[in-house]
């Protein structure tokens, strides 16, 4: 049996993080959750996820800063990320489309679970 892909969820919304984590776990992923973005780097080093799913708008440290922190760590610099934010809208014609902004893949937070998972799979494939 294949080892489950590890996903680190970084989002300040506790309820959303819990629900998404549960869904991802039920979909065959090992999930770790961080609601305080400042602790993201530490957890990433500890958990060593295959991919980080990061909210963009967070207090104290936004998603971009988190990505920068991860990239600056030699151990984590190659790790794929998927940005999950309410600030982008789904493309009505292609809800699954990953929107590249600033070199990062974005998915709308309100996207269906399937869309999010597809995004994760795509990014994992790039590894």
């Amino acid at each position: 049996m294949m080892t489950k892909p590890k996903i680190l969820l970084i989002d300040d919304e506790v309820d959303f993080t819990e629900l998404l984590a549960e869904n991802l776990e039920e979909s065959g992923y090992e999930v770790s959750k961080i609601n305080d973005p400042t602790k993201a780097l530490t957890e990433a080093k500890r958990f060593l996820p295959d991919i980080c799913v990061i909210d963009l708008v967070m207090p104290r440290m936004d998603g971009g800063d988190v990505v920068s922190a991860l990239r600056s760590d030699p151990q984590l610099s190659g790790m794929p990320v998927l940005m999950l934010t309410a600030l982008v809208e789904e493309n009505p014609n292609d809800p699954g489309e990953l929107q590249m902004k600033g070199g990062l893949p974005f998915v709308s937070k309100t996207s269906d679970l399937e869309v999010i998972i597809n995004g994760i799979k795509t990014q994992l494939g790039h590894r």
Partner: protein
Amino acid sequence: MTLSKDRLHVLIGAALALIIVALAVGEGIAGSVKWVLLGTGLLLLMTMVGATGNTRLELYESRQKLRKMRRERDELSHYFNALMDYVPSYIYFKDRDSKFLQVNRAMVELMGAESVKDIIGKSDVDYFDADLAKKKRQDELDVIETGEGHEKYIEERNSPGGGEQWVLSSKLPFRDADGRIIGTFGISSDVTEMIEAQHSLEMERNTLRVLLDSIPDSIYIRDPHGKYTVVNRALADLVGIKDPQEVEGKTPFDFFPKEDAEAFLAEDTKIMEAGKTVTSPARISRRANGEYRHLITTKVPVRNREGKVSGILGINRDVTEQERAREAVRRTEHRMQEIVDNSPSPMYAKSRAGQYLMVNRRYEDLFGVKAEDVVGKTDLEIIKDEEVAKGLQENDALVFEKGEPVQFDEVLNLGEGDRAYVSVKFPMRDLDGTIYAVGGISTDITERKKAEEELKNLNKELMDTYDNLTKAHEQLIQAEKMESVGRLAAGVAHEVKNPLAMIGMGLELLARRLPDDDVKGKETIERMKRGIDRAKKIVRGLVDYSSDRRLEFSRINPNVLIRESLELVEYQLKEAGIEVMFSKNAELPEVQADQTKIEQVLVNIFINAMHSMDGGGTLTVKAKLMSMSNVGHDEGSRLRERMREGDKMVKIIVTDTGKGIPEEALGKLFDPFFTTKPTGKGTGLGLTVARKIADLHGGEMTLTNRPDGKGAMATLSLRVEND
């Protein structure tokens, strides 16, 4: 009688002569001697006889003279008597005592005596009253005393037969052959008739004079030399002389400038030669004081008893005042004519018979005619177009009939395109108020019309610009509002989407937990997912609204749009106790629309309607096809403006039976964040976004109260794409 020596000589001579003749006649002497003798004898004899005759002749002559004298005396006496008997004058001779020496027969009759003899030796006392007799006696004494008679005096006296009598008398001293005054004699004639004739003549003359002097015309008679022989007062006035008699004997040279006087007399001469009356029309004559007068002069040749022209009778009528009045009228007329001629409008006057009485210069220029060619003619004669002439006549007739000015719009084409005229035709009345003509003034309003048209266009342009500006301004305001709305929406979206995402995740979990046979549960999950989708779309719409995203057009049947929109709110409406009335219109063509956005608009409308119907009501949805021709004025100008000829639109009309829109809210319905709903029931963005969506579709959304006042009415018009 004794023989004188002469006679004796004669006798001797005669005897001798006889002897010689006898000798000669005798036989004794022959030849030539005989004839000489005979001749001598005869000669001598004849001489002797002649000598004797002379003496006798003288005697004879004396006798003859005497006889002649007697005869002459008798003749004279006869003449005298005849004269005395038949002369119609009264003749008398009186002695120094005034006793009648001789009277003629007329005198006898006058004195009522039988015969001359009865009177001789008597005096006036015997025949006349004492006073007269005394006066006569005194007169005669004067004559005798002074030796001077009274000659040819006229006196009035009572005729013996009664009545007045005028006599011409002479009373002279009667002298004898030696010149001594032996009495008086007198002769008097009845000149009553003559005097009376003279009096009546004088009266006539006076009357004539008065008449002449009273006539305001100046009248004169000039003789062939140009001298005034008769002059009336008016003429004296004309030449500046007080007394007409002072003018008589003078000539025009005394009163008028030389050239004038010469002209007058030259004319006199001409008329006298022609022997015909001449009346000269008004002409100007200068008065002595330099003033000009207008005169009408009539000159009549005057003839003497033989019928020969002996002068000129002139009558000058002074018409200066009339002429001045006429001049004033002429000047006024001229002034009026100038005004009329310089008017830029053609003017004219036509008689009742339709004949032109006048036209002004502008009329001449405009129609290329001369006034003299037009005046007296009718429109038909000028225009030669029966139709047009008839039209004009009818207009004229209307003015005559109405008796007041009437205005007509006329279009004339004079070769340079149509010109527009406004013609005022008015009745022209004489001083009695009777309409005798129709006058017309036509004003060319082509330029004015053009200017008006330009002004109208300019105004429209201005209005359009203003509208555009207003629209732009509104759009700018709207854009600004929308920008802030967008910014707000974007901010809000994030916060809204997070819980939405959360619910979505939760539903995913719940869905997996449902047993496979829980169909109802799965359906509920699906409905909830659709709800989330809608919420997401609305949030996206809000964000899109500010970010001007392209619409996703597709061809879609309006019935489907309505039905699916109704489905979205079906549950809510049912809960609110609202009955939905919608029957699809099979004739509607497909429209180009972004289904999601249009559904968003319709849902917004339905929700608004629902909110206005507290306690239930009826929501009616209809859709119809509109084209330019059946867009009524009441549909609103915006729709008309958006539609072009040939365009078609589908109009979705949603009416409710709610409380309607408050009057004060009508103008603000589409303002962002304006809401009439209680807190929590509306965001104030729904209609703002809805209208924006309608606008982006090239359609229109309206929201008003129903005309019947029983609720509100919303419309959404969508363009039908032309194939």
